[in-house]
Each structure stands twice: as C-alpha cells, then as structure tokens.
C-alpha cells in the first residue's frame, strides 16, 4: 500500500530544487577537520588501553577532550555565518552496494553543539577526577567513546551514519550506569534505558529506510535528481532537496517523531529519565539532561524531512510540548530528591523546546536551539555540582540535607545561579531562550503559551521550595556540618560554566548570529 502511495503521489510534491534554500558548499578548510574531530577521541582510547597506569587514564582523557574542544572551536571560528547551508562537508564511500556514504558536515543548527559537547565532557572528566575509584581506565574509555558517538550524531549528514552513532551511544551509557551508578537499582535503570532506546531505534530506522526506498522508487519512474536510477538515498542533503510525497510524509513524520520522542524525552515516554538521574552516576545524569539529542533529532530530521506533515500536525507537537511543560513541572513540585526534581524539571524544559519548534517561526526555532545549548551548561553544570554534593553527603534527599549553605556557601551559591538560569532570570542565558520561545508560542499557539506561563510560575515554586529545604534552614545532619566547601578544581570548573551562562545571557547575539542563517533557511524550507 505504501509503495502505491509513493508512485501515485510523487508528482504532487514535485518542486524545483532551486526553491529549496539548503545549499551545500564544500569545506572551507583544506583538510577534513570534522573527521579528525571524530578520530581524536577513539585514538585516545587506544592510548589508554596501551598504558597500564590507572591514573594516567584521566590525564589522557582530559587532553583528548581538550583537543576536541579546540578543534570544535576552530570549526566555530572558521564557520561562515552568512551561509545558511552545510559547511565542512566530507564525503567518502562507506557501503557502496547500498549507496551509503560517510558524509559529515555542519550548519548553523548543529555547529554549536560541538564545542558545548566537548566542554560538557571536559567538565565530566574533571568532576570524575578523584571520585572514580574502580576501573578508571575503563570509565574514561567509555566516556570518550560516548563523546565520539555524540559528536558523530551532530556531524552526520547520512541517515544511516546518524543512526549508527545514535545506537552507538547506548553501549557506553549502559556500562557507565551499571558499573559506576550510585543507586541500588542501577542495573534496572540501565536495562530500562537500553530497552527504551532500542525500542525508539526501531521506528527511526524504519523511517529512514522508508525515505530511502521512496527515492529509489522515484528514480525508477522518472529521474529528476540526477542520481542513478533505483538507488537508495540515505544522503541527508539529497533527501532535503527532494521533498517526499504528502502521504509518505505523514508516515515518516510519525515514525521519526516516535523515534526521537523516546530520547527527548517527550511525555509519556519520559520514565527512563528520573530512573537514570536517580541510579546513574552524576556524569551520566549530566549528559542525559545536558544533551537533548532527541530534540536535536526533531529539528534536524523530523520536521525538515516531512515539512508538510509537520505543519499539518503542528497541534500534535504543540500538545506534546505543553503536556511535557506542565506534567514535568507539576511532578517536580512533589519531589523530595534533588536529582529527581531536576529530572522532571528537565522534562518540563524539553516541553518548552518542543513548543518552540512547533511554533515554526524564526524566534521559536532560535529560542529552542538556544535552550538546547543552555541545557548543556545549566543542566549539565547543575548535575556535576550535585555530583560534588553527593560525594560529600552521600545523598541528595532533602531529609538528609538542610543547611548546606551554612557549611558549603559556594556550592549553594552556584546551585542557586544554575537554578536562576533554569528559571529564565534575565542576565542568564535561560532568559533569552525562554523569552524567544514564549513570544513566538504566544503568537502561534496562544493557549499553549499561556499554559506554559503557568509552568514557568510553577518552575519558580518547585525550584525554590526544594532549594529552601535542601540548602537553606538550619544544619540538621552531621554529614552536612562536617562537609567541606568546593575545592579549587571543582570551583574552577563550576565558575567556568557560570561565566558562560552569564556571558551568553548578556551577549546572546554571539549564539543567535551563528544560528540565524540556518534557522531562517529551516523556516523557509517549511514555507516553500
């Protein structure tokens, strides 16, 4: 039935490729910088494997992560902001029989994820400096593998390559949780996460293959792309330039939406996130809340590959978004554990990002992207900080805390600053993102926008209530009264994150200028 649809419908959505804004230019730097970025980290893993010294592993990991940060910064600085298309494209044959190439490249939407991912991993490596006592070599190898896979997700321009990196993240995450998790049920959480993600992979792969087959069918009947007839197309840019027929778009939209909804997470598929936050190590919780790969997938694949369907089902996206905002916020109100509260607040924030995407306006998309960058700094940072607290007190449950500000004033102050950024207080990066999202959502989905404002009031309530119970008030526990404040290494790390939060809050155009071209291209693609 689908095949019939493909053949009968393709003529309807035939458009000339010149209408499409996405243009591709080749690498502006002479050498394959993105591939080098991807190779550095596995290479460091190999070195770690070769060394027998357990303590050297962390140094090698730190150096490798720093190099990857430097490379991503080089990419950012040599990026052409005026070009809305993909840059630094590299193409190598990978599986010729299926027409799958290794294609990497970045545009204004994906580029900033590279330095921020590297930065988050540096933060995680530094925060795990002394706290990982068992098998540090394996820990850092897995961490670097996870970073490779994450960076791979952001640079892939081939759906199968993307899927490869997407599934590759599961392996390190699984082992990181079961070996270094802090909760008693960490194995349960790890299995749950892996199973949920595997299940999410099924519709994703199915959607990508469906799109590829559609092109194979297309070229059979009448080739208008110049591709050899009958070949499967997994190349993202080619897929973008040849819009799918309307009915197939609906199918692919739902498949990809479902696939990415697991990872985002969108209500009702969010249950793995609190489990991971409670059971996993602080580093994994920081990655899970700091890098919202699912939301990135929605922006990168779901909407551009099925633009008409996305516009038809904008109400579904907005509905999912606002449900997430309220559901997460309401659940966060009743939490008594800092980690669980932050997990639910993350669900709420992702809802806001989905709302921003659903508004299909430049402000909404730029706000959503800005918010995704913020997660890396704010959510990642706050979980790293919680890791420090957990290391000192052995718990993040409010009953066993209280009065933290008395003995650890710096930790409490930084937690508050991160919290303010989460609340979207002006002067922090959170304000800009929230402001842009709300302004555009109120215009396109007024009801959802007003409901989101309720979520924002609730956000202040749940954050401050739990902050008051855990950090303020009199000291009630011995662990708290004897704990030390942040050490120099921890202080520098946290300060670094805070400085960026404030810099991006005061000079938001640094980020908005980079994402502007690609975001406008993304919107034009929808309107064309």
């Amino acid at each position: 039935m689908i095949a019939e649809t493909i053949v009968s419908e393709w003529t309807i959505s035939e458009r000339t490729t010149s209408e499409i804004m996405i243009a591709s230019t080749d690498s502006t730097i002479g050498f394959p910088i993105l591939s080098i970025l991807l190779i550095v980290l596995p290479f460091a893993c190999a070195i770690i494997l070769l060394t027998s010294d357990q303590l050297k592993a962390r140094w090698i990991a730190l150096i490798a992560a720093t190099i990857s940060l430097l490379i991503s910064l080089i990419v950012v600085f040599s990026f052409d902001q005026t070009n809305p298309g993909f840059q630094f494209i590299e193409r190598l044959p990978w599986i010729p029989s299926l027409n799958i190439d290794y294609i990497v490249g970045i545009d204004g939407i994906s580029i900033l994820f590279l330095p921020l991912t590297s930065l988050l991993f540096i933060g995680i490596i530094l925060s795990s400096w002394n706290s990982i006592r068992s098998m540090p070599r394996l820990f850092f190898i897995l961490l670097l593998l996870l970073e490779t896979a994450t960076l791979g997700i952001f640079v892939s321009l081939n759906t199968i390559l993307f899927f490869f990196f997407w599934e590759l993240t599961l392996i390190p995450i699984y082992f990181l949780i079961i070996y270094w998790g802090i909760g008693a049920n960490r194995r349960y959480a790890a299995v749950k996460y892996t199973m949920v993600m595997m299940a999410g992979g099924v519709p994703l792969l199915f959607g990508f293959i469906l799109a590829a087959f559609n092109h194979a069918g297309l070229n059979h009947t009448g080739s208008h792309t110049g591709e050899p007839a009958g070949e499967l197309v997994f190349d993202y840019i080619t897929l973008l330039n040849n819009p799918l027929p309307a009915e197939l778009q609906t199918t692919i939209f739902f498949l990809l939406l479902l696939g990415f909804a697991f990872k985002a997470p969108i209500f009702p598929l969010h249950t793995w996130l609190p489990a991971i936050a409670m059971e996993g190590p602080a580093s994994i919780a920081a990655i899970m809340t700091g890098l919202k790969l699912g939301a990135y997938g929605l922006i990168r694949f779901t909407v551009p590959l099925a633009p008409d369907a996305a516009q038809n089902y904008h109400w579904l996206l907005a509905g999912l978004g606002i449900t997430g905002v309220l559901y997460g916020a309401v659940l966060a109100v009743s939490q008594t554990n800092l980690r669980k509260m932050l997990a639910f607040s993350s669900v709420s924030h992702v809802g806001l990002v989905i709302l921003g995407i659903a508004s299909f306006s430049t402000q909404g998309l730029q706000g959503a992207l800005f918010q995704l960058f913020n997660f890396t700094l704010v959510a990642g940072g706050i979980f790293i900080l919680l890791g420090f607290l957990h290391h000192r007190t052995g718990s993040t449950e409010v009953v066993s805390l209280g009065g933290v500000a008395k003995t650890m004033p710096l930790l409490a102050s930084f937690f508050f600053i991160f919290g303010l950024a989460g609340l979207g207080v002006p002067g922090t990066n959170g304000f800009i993102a929230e402001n842009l999202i709300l302004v555009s959502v109120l215009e396109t989905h007024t009801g959802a926008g007003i409901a989101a404002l309720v979520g924002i009031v609730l956000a202040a309530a749940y954050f401050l209530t739990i902050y008051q119970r855990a950090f303020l008030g009199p000291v009630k526990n011995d662990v708290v009264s004897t704990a030390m404040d942040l050490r120099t290494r921890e202080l520098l790390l946290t300060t670094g994150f805070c400085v960026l939060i404030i810099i991006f809050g005061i000079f938001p155009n640094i980020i908005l200028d980079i994402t502007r071209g690609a975001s406008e291209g993304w919107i034009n693609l929808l309107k064309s």
Partner: protein
Amino acid sequence: MNEANSVLQAFVWLIPFLPMLGALAIGIGFISGKNRGESGENQTTLIANGTALLSLLIVFAVDLHAIVIGVPGQLELAQWFSSGDYQVNLSFNLDTFALVMMTLVAVISVLMIRFSVNYMHREAGYQRFFMIMSLFMGAMLLIVMSGNVVLTFTGWELAGVSSYLLIAYVYDRPVAVKNATRVFVTNRIGDAGFIIAIFLSFHLLKTLEWTEIFAGSSSLTPLGNNILAASFVLAAIAKSAQVPFAPWISRALEGPTPSSAIFYGSLMVHAGVYLIIRLQPVLENSPIIMSTLAFIGLLTVLYSFFSNLVQTDVKSNLIFSTTSQVGLMFFSCGMGWFELASWHLVLHALWRAYQFLHAPALMHLMDRKTRPVHPLLKRQGWLYTASLQRFWLDPMADWLLVRPIKSIAHDTERFDEKVINRLVGLPEQTTAITSIADWEMQKSISQTAGLLSKDQPVKGWHSEAEKQEVSRGHGFAGKLLEGLADMLFWFEEHLVLKSGGEGLLKLLNLIGHYLLQIEELLSQPRYLMLLILATFVVII
C-alpha cells in the same frame, strides 16, 4: 545638541550597570576568597559605595545636561539581541519623569548603602548584603530608565531576585526562607503578566520601545488595548503589593532592618506605580482597566487601614501604611490623576526612606505601651478578627492555589508511577529479576546453599524449577520467545548433547546463556512493544 547627546550616550548606560558590576565584583571577590571575613569589609564597602556614588554622579551629570541643554528623551545605544523581526535594543527613555525617578532611586540607594556600612558591621553575611544591595540598585535604575519593555522586565526580574536574596538573608531561619520563596513565587505571577504584555506589544504593535507603544496604543482595537493594559496592570499590582497580592509585603520584612525596609517600603513597592504612570497613554484608552485600577487601589487602602489598626510593632505599622499610600496612588491613577500620583510617589518614597531609617532609633528612645484596640474595631468584633487575620488573603491563596497544586502533584506522581511507568516501561523492579547479573548472584547463592546441604541434590543448569525462574515470559513477545527458547532447549538436549563433543557442549551452553539473557531482556518491555505495534497499525 548631537555632540552632547553622543557624550551622554557613552556614559548613560553606566548608571544602571555600574552598581551591577559592583555586585559582580563583590561576588567574584567572595568566590576567590579575597574579601571574606571582617578584613574584607573595607574592600566590599569601597566597591559598593564607590560604584553607587559614581552612578549617582553620572545621574547628576545627566540631570545637569537636561537642565542646560534639554531633556535627552529616547536614546538607542546598541542592539541587545535579535531573532527574525524580534529585536531588543539597549535603549533608554530619559524623559522628565524618568529623570526625576532615576535621581530619586539613586539618592535613596546611595544613602541606604552608606547607612548599612555601620549597621551591618561584623555581620556574617556582610559581603552578601552589599552584593544584593548593589544588584538591587542597578535593577531599580534599569526599571526607571529603560527605553523598552524587555529591558524594563530585566530590571523587574533582577529586583525580584535581589528581594528573594534579601528576605532569605538569615538563611538558617526557616521562616525567613519560607517567606522568601513565597514572595518570589507571588511576584512570578505578575511576571507572567509582564511576559504577555511583551508579547502583545510585539505582536500587535510590532515594537518593544516604550515611546512607540504609547504612540501606537490609540490605533489598537479596544479589546487589544484592554488586554495589553490588563497584562501590565497584573504585573504592576503584583510588584506593588496590591490586593490580592498584598500579603507578600509583610512577609518581606524578614530582611535585616532597616535597609530592607527601605528596599521595599520606599523603592520596590513604587515600581508598580511607576509602570502605571508610565502607561498613562495606554491606560487612558481603556476605561474598564482604569476603573479596575481605582477599585483595586481602594480595596488595598481599606485592607491595609484595617490590618494596620491591629498591628503592634512599628515595622508592620509602617509597611501597612506604605501599602495604603501605594493603594492611594493606584486609586489616583485609576481616576486619571497621573500627575498627582507621580507627585505622591516621589514625596512618599522620600518620606518613607527617612521614616524607616529612624524607626529603630525611635524605638530605642521611646518606651511606649502596646496600643489599645481601636474603638471602631471594638464595636465590630468580626472586623477585628478579619483585620487580625489580614482578611484571610494568605490562607485563601493557600486554599485556592498552593494546596490544589500540591495535591495535583501527588496525584500526578502516583499516576506517573502506576500508569505511565507500567504502560511504557518495565515491570515493577521489585518483582522481577532485572538483569543477568542479579540472576547470577541468585544462582551462586542457591548453588552454595545446595553444596552446604549435601542431602539435597545440587540444582543443575537446566533443572525445571530454575528454568521457570529465569525464563518467565511476559506479554506477547515474551511468550513467543519463551516458546522459541523451549524449542531450542529441546533441540540442544535431545540432538546435540547426545551426539556432540565436549567443546560443542560448552559453546552451546554459552550460546544458551546469551539467548536466555537476551530473552530475559526482551521479555520485559511488553507494553512498549505493544505500543510500537499499535503505532504501526495506526500509521499503515
């Protein structure tokens, strides 16, 4: 004129940002450990006073400029951020009213900070206090000076944050921190109104600059104008502690006296009135909102008058009389007497600042008995109770908002655990073996137990009881896999084991082990698979 304006532009932004930079510097000093303890007090004082004074000097310079050359009016310095056609500028609107207000705020703030130097001497949170004060001064200046809605909102929010920090100043007192949270969340409701107002100005008038909003409001439809005015009014009454938001201000008295009293009594409560006076052109087009405003003002006056009658300490007395004065200002605005309201504002702010500074000294000098019950309240017992209870506004908010939200939160949590979790994910973690590692542990325990008690036969790898324990199938996919595993098991036992060698047996055992592991994993998310299947059905 132009040249003078450009000189002005180079310095005017420093007025609100200097105190903020001061706050930042104190914060950095504290983090790096440079200004902690009593020895750091001098440095802190220097920064806080220095930036405040410098800011005041620039304010005077701008005033002088205004007197000599003329009122600067709207100044656009730079772009703050933009996305699509949404563009926020760093702009200031320095008309006569803004000039008066900015001078007033700067003078009172400088006095307040200077006064606190002696008052806070040797307090534990000395540095923190001055950081908050500097931040607050900057925020207030930003509110009165800013030329566009978003920048005003920035000051508005920062003032809210600094008020939270000040109320929670003695952070080990549970009452203080609880009040701080309550105040911030109450103010946040007003902020939601402000955000709607920002959206409406952008959406309806395509601008964020105050001057253009005022000019454009007459072209709006009555409905649009009413909603715009109502959103701003919501923000203003929350900030200025009008009924029904009035109770927050008495909670705000937790901060260290008397500076905090000035903070609220003389500056922050007036922010709402300032906004309303600013909005005169918008409000004048919405008679309904104007009358609502007058009504709210009147209610607040009554509320604070009666509540005041039963207060016995000077701080509460003063704060309630402040709210009633602010209520009067709202009333005058509602009646259209904006000029009167602005005079009232300025004089009241000055008078309160003076009064709050004197209150503690007055208490030292005078020894007065508790005031008797007012004769009016004596006659009307219910009024006395109502006044004592402050007209039950706080319990009402609890009853209407806080408690329902809390119970919804608990219900949602139960729903999340009992319904969503089961529907989407895995079985209850307590009832099932969650991974092969757990299972192995159990196996080894049972084996050692078997070895210890020799009379019982040691359970084999494929004893019936254990097989059931491990390979329990859940749901459709699980049952299917269980059947498959049973078949493979039969195959292994009957065909391979009888003819195969030792090596093959080991290999098969290993494969069987992995198959069981995979089966165990796959059997769990039954509902998940069903969900995916259902989706496929729906789509295809």
